């Protein structure tokens, strides 16, 4: 039997709020990046869960596109963090308060 959609939604909310918790409490830029990925993947869980709920595959295909987007986002994010580390000798997001250095 299929798992009830409510459980998927609660899992998704838990993953999303874990990501939000990380963003609100951490100052490490790498932790920020991981937290943003958690929030993005919570949206993916919702897409797949509602795809199953409606018996329509559009959500699953769209989730694949979102994963490709997440991969590109991580590449850009790690590039930014590398430059941050080289210029401030730290990955603390509170250090880089301006857009120029």
């Amino acid at each position: 039997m299929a798992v009830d959609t409510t459980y998927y939604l609660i899992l998704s909310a838990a993953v999303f709020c874990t990501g939000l918790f990380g963003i609100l409490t951490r100052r490490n830029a790498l932790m920020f990046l991981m937290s943003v990925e958690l929030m993005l993947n919570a949206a993916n869980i919702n897409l797949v869960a509602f795809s199953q709920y409606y018996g329509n595959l559009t959500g699953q295909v769209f989730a694949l596109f979102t994963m490709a987007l997440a991969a590109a986002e991580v590449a850009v994010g790690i590039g930014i963090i590398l430059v941050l580390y080289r210029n401030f000798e730290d990955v603390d997001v509170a250090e880089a308060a301006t857009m120029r250095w």
Partner: protein
Amino acid sequence: MTTRPKLQLGGHLAPGLVAVALFVIMAVVFVGAPLGDPAGFDEATAIQNETLQSESPSGDYGTISSNGQTYAVAYNASDGSEAANVSVANDPGVGVDFKEVDTNGDGQSDTVYAISRTSITENIGYLMFAIDSDQRSAPGETFLVAFEIIDLVLVGALVGAVVLARRDEGGEVVTALGLRSTDEPTGTSAGQVAADGGTEDGGDH
């Protein structure tokens, strides 16, 4: 007396509590939401000899709900008509298997399960590349145009990243590909690959 770690309470915990509170609100809303049973992909059921009330837009196989009941929808391969009374005898032969089940234990089969022969992964491939196939059994939109657009955008991002990865080194621009945009053949850093993109020292400190 031993020392042990203690939870440091205070106002600094407030941002974390915001996230926890959001989860509680979301969980309450989701538990209270009237969602019902998921339609699923691989099978549908129908009460035998029930008449379908409306037509499914989903193609050869799918489910429709009517008067609180979910029915299997199948199309007759010979004339393309909808098989109203779904049973093993109405097997359309395209992407769907039927199985009769006795649910109330009276020795008579009363429920028909329609089971797709095509896997979900196979269906995703058909949809993503807009392949028109008789084997496709689940409804959905095609994504070929979106696939190609994202393909071009990602190639553009890659080219942009390589072009932008350059730095000044002694008044000379060094790029990631080792090509210099200045015309002076100084040769000090000719052919050097500089992919780290940074300066030797930070400017603000």
